[in-house]
């Protein structure tokens, strides 16, 4: 299983890419798990927890591969629990606080629409291990998008109160969507080696799905103004430290603890 050589590509760029995929799933999965026991309805509580579970499972695959590729003996757990904020490579969108249920759903939808396109593109990665993970994850994420999209429509086109909340969530989160589509040197390396898509290439499909959904939800798509960025290169918002303080507490307080 681990005998196939990695294609010729800058190893640092590949490691960076795997961390980005893994950290997006990990941090969003952690955010969703914060809802456990607090969602507005039992079914939604379960759905949020199940989505979190899928994402954390995908994290194990991405970070597991990152550790294997790095060759320093770090496991997925080591990477999740023993890195500090500046070493995380998730986009800022996924670390945004949960807010209310509507905001959590809007964040999920904006991310899912990108995530599914990304995974579909990665299914034809020149590295079979990346393609295999993408094939598996895409099937799960298709259900995430199905659900988040449906709920964005129902809440946007719901009561005056739910509409107001969805509009505010959309306006608040929109400046964090740009980072998903801004490539850097690592992305260019990956794309040139046929390992992954150029981030910009996913924008048109995302715009289509998001635009269509927001129209159905009677929500106005915000204009693309100034876009926040930094997470992909380890520059995070103040929220990241709080997330890690909770997520990593056990391994920091009791190094090596298992159960």
């Amino acid at each position, binding site marked *: 299983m681990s005998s196939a050589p990695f294609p010729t590509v800058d190893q640092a760029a590949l490691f960076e890419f795997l961390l980005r995929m893994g950290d997006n799933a990990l941090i969003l999965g952690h955010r969703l798990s914060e809802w456990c026991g607090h969602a507005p309805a039992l079914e939604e509580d379960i759905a949020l927890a199940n989505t979190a579970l899928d994402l954390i499972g995908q994290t194990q695959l991405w970070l597991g591969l990152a550790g294997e590729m790095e060759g320093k003996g770090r496991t997925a757990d080591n990477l999740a629990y023993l890195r500090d904020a500046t070493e995380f490579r998730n986009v800022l969108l996924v670390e945004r606080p949960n807010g209310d249920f509507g905001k959590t759903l809007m964040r999920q939808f904006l991310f899912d629409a990108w995530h599914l396109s990304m995974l579909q593109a990665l299914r034809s990665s020149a590295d079979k291990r990346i393609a295999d993970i993408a094939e598996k994850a895409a099937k799960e994420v298709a259900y995430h998008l*199905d659900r988040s999209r449906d709920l964005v429509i129902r809440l946007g086109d719901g009561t005056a109160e739910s509409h107001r909340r969805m509009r505010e969530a959309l306006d608040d989160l929109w400046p964090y969507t740009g980072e998903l589509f801004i490539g850097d040197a690592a992305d260019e390396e990956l794309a040139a080696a046929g390992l992954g898509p150029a981030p910009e290439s996913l924008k048109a499909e995302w715009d289509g799905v998001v635009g269509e959904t927001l129209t159905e939800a009677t929500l106005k798509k915000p204009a693309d103004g100034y876009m926040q960025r930094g997470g992909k290169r380890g520059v995070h918002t103040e929220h990241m430290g709080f997330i890690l303080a909770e997520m990593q507490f056990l391994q920091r307080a009791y190094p090596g603890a298992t159960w």
Partner: protein
Amino acid sequence: MATATLPSTAEIWRWLGEVPDPEIPVISVVDLGIIRAVRWEGDRLVVTVTPTYSGCPATAVINLEIERALREKGIVKLKLERQLSPAWTTDWISAEGREKLRRYGIAPPADGTAIDGVLRQRSERLSGRADPIVACPQCGSTKTEKISQFGSTPCKASYRCTDCLEPFDYFKCI
């Protein structure tokens, strides 16, 4: 095992057919379709297992159960391999497994209704096409409705029957 004859792979499959899924104990890991291959490499048995969902907490337990069952049968040298691709699909749940699910109260997957991740098709689906027709495992009525895309585990959705009014789990297609 060194001097004894190694059990045939058909025998191993039979043994695995008695290993229950930890979350749905009425079906076996073979019924579920997650055992992809059984082979001997010299005197070492290699069993290839594919996960259902990447985050399924039962995966680790399933591996433990497989190992325990095979050790009990006297297998000494054993290796469990994880295989991600081709990704597991509910199409691989056996006919027998489906019937067992139904009797247990879980509606089996309606084949061919998996969301395949093609965005355009899904948008058509959302703009009118109905959810799959799922028969109530209690009374058989097809007058059922989806409550939530996610049920007690990621692999299931929550449904209810509008005839007998029973809620039930539907093993959704993936």
